[in-house]
């Protein structure tokens, strides 16, 4: 018995030594791990507590491209843009204290929009933890509610396992941001490290369940019996890389499908069953008909309040089928009659097999009727305005003509965001990048930088308002330094437009602190050696846009648009989706 144990131990020991050991610092083994995980690009900003990692990075310049941003918030938004455009995990570095706290907005944004990120923050030496040391903040506790997972490393021997877990957690299941805080002593600690092993299972974490076929069958029964079925899809389709499976499902079942702004682009704008956008500034038909459909099939969306409007008057007549990978979303806001918990890449083909081929021509015609009303009363005025002032909609119409739906469009937050989502054409998935859940002004410019790195072959256009641009303009410096080819389109209405619109509609035009002035954006861009121009006349708009798109390198175009234009249709807050206003 003892002899047998000895043999086992010996074999074990041999197996250990036959594995390649790497002798080096915690910082080096961290960077090796990032390379093992396929990371090529890091957005970051150095500082005292992360200096050993940056020192190690000096020798990795050929393998890891580090983009020095101008503010950690810019770094994390860039990592988000990278992740959203590429489908990979975005990585960013920041130092302790203020570096780490500057990540919080981006973490919250990534958490609510399910963006896979791994953020590495430096931390003071382990023996100083809790002493209010220089640049010490309790980043783990600060970020707990806005991360999918976080962990503080105080010993270099933990780094590999924690990093492997971090990547696995960030990208599996419902993706999300992960933060690893590494104390300085662990960064400089020299050890012999084993080979890096990727993580593929954590016993307390189930990224996706085994599919329960009985629920698929129940869903199919409801769908097959439906006269007016309606599909609502969200970013889950994109995150699950299930665009093809989704298209196969709607093509076979013939069900009209509307998107949340996070789901936009999962199928092309031109797809005959794509009936448009849901929610507060969504299309007329999809909102009204939500309250007329008999079966609603929600796929990878979470019934956000901006989508549902008043909840107790939302789709009460409909049976709800809800497909989601996150069981906490099923029944959270809208009670599902059939909840299909699972990865839609797996559930959709099963469902497609069971649904009948159908063409809901009459039902689709109802959508078309509503669409025609919206075209007549809203869309034509926005896209082909008769007044002198340029509208945001006509800028988008021209952009669609020039780019043909091939560009990646990154937006900031506000009126321009709603207009861009409503009118931009998309041929490809991962082309619409916007801060949906958190509504982070200042997201657009840094996210566009990241998107360009994530999709280098695409034209990347950042559409930003005059307000949002002034929240993160420092990232022009990043564009300047790296020559990131971002086309910046500022739609300037000289107001914080969305808040102004609400004040006009609901606060008797009491324009309280929405009158924002701007610097000379063209001069600002030129100060950063970025080509720029401003237009205010319609005749020059098309040429200006073409100049921007065709320019080799980054470019800033400021378009002066109507001051007091409103985004319609609109479901006023607290109202039902069927009470959507066209003016």
């Amino acid at each position, binding site marked *: 018995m003892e002899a047998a144990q000895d043999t086992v131990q010996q074999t074990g020991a041999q197996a250990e030594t036959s594995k390649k050991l790497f002798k080096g610092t915690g910082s080096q083994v961290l960077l090796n791990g990032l390379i093992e995980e396929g990371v090529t690009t890091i957005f970051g900003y150095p500082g005292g507590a992360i200096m050993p990692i940056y020192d190690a990075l000096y020798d990795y310049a050929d393998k890891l491209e580090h983009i020095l941003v101008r503010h950690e918030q810019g770094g994390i938004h860039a990592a988000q843009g990278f992740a959203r455009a590429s489908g990979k995990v975005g990585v960013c570095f920041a130092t302790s204290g203020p570096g780490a706290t500057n990540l919080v907005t981006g973490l919250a944004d990534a958490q609510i929009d399910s963006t896979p990120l791994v953020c590495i923050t430096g931390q003071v030496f382990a023996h100083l933890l809790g002493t209010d040391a220089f640049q010490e903040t309790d980043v*783990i*506790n600060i970020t*707990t*509610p806005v991360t*999918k*997972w*976080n962990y*503080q490393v105080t010993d270099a021997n933990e780094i590999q396992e924690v990093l492997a877990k971090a990547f696995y*957690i960030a990208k599996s299941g419902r993706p999300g941001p992960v933060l690893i805080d590494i104390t300085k002593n662990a960064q400089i600690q020299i050890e012999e490290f084993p080979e890096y092993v990727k993580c*593929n*299972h*954590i*016993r*307390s*974490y*189930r990224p996706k369940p085994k599919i329960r076929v009985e629920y698929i069958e129940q869903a199919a029964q409801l769908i097959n019996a439906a006269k007016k079925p309606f599909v609502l899809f969200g970013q889950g389709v994109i995150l699950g890389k299930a665009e093809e499976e989704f298209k196969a499902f709607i093509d076979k079942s013939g069900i009209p499908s509307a998107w949340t702004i996070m789901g936009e682009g999962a199928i092309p704008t031109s797809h005959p069953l794509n009936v448009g956008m849901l929610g507060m500034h969504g299309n007329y038909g999809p909102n009204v008909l939500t309250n007329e459909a008999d079966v609603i099939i929600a796929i990878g969306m979470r019934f956000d309040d901006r989508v549902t409007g008043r909840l107790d008057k939302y789709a009460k007549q409909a049976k709800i089928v809800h497909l989601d990978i*996150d*069981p*906490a979303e099923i*029944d*959270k806001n809208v009670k599902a009659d059939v909840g299909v918990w699972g990865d839609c890449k797996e559930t959709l083909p099963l469902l497609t097999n069971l649904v009948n081929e159908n063409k809901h021509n009459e039902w689709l015609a109802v959508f078309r009727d509503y669409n025609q009303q919206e075209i007549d009363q809203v869309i034509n005025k926005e896209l082909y305005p008769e007044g002198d002032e340029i509208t945001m909609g006509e800028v988008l119409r021209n952009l669609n003509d020039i780019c043909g739906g091939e560009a990646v469009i990154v937006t900031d937050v506000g009126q321009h965001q709603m207009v861009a989502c409503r009118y931009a054409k998309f041929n490809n998935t991962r082309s619409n990048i916007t801060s949906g859940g958190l509504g982070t002004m200042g997201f657009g410019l840094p996210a566009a930088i990241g998107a360009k790195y994530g999709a280098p072959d695409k034209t990347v256009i950042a559409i930003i308002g005059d307000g949002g641009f002034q929240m993160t303009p420092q990232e022009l410096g990043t564009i300047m330094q790296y020559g990131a080819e971002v086309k910046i389109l500022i739609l300037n209405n000289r107001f914080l437009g969305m808040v102004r619109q609400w004040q006009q509609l609901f606060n008797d035009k009491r324009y309280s602190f929405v009158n924002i002035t701007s610097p000379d954006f063209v001069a600002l861009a030129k100060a950063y050696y970025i080509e720029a121009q401003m237009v205010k006349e319609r005749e020059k708009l098309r040429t200006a846009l073409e100049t921007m798109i065709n320019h080799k390198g980054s470019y800033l175009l400021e378009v002066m648009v109507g001051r007091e234009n409103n985004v319609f249709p609109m479901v006023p807050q607290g109202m039902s989706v069927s009470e959507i206003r066209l003016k």
Partner: protein
Amino acid sequence: MSTEDKIKYTEDTLDLDGKQEYTITVYAENRIGLLNRIAIIFSKRKINIESLNSSASEIDGIHRFNIVIHEGYEVVRKLARQIEKQIEVLKVYFNTNDEIIWQELALYKVSTDEIAEKVTVERLLRQYGASAVVIRKDYTVFAVTGHREETDALVKALEPYELIEFVRSARVAIIKDSAGFHEKLKEFEAIEPGEELVENEFLEKGGKIFTM
């Protein structure tokens, strides 16, 4: 009973909107910071935790939290799902009081003179199921284990006799209908290749011990 089974079980028998006491049982990894992650789920929704206990579970290395809140069924169900979603949480159960066996422990410090003069210790011991933990010249400490009403009753009884200190522990609860976590853990670990199951002496006789 899993959260899913519970839906079917409870919907016919309970007033879904009515608030009542729920005991949430969380099986989780023993990790620094997890308690905070769980507590945030309650405070985010401005829900007060009435009682919280963190202890070992029937399985070595797996932690068990008992959390008591006063809420409606729908809210508790959503909370349970949000907790279960946390990476280091394995499983969450929630139960009404009739579905669990629970106990709280209370300690009472009273003046020995006072108690000896005015009330017989024996009577207290008998009537409230108390036990004397320490008897000193200057004070005596009693302990009572039981439900809230029982521990409260002794507070009332001792009020006239100079109750110097009182403390009550969090609730610990056993789910009547649970077979423990051993089988579940196997499921959780099954996907991982090469990982050895945590050996536990109760694995073989689980049925005997956990059937009530």
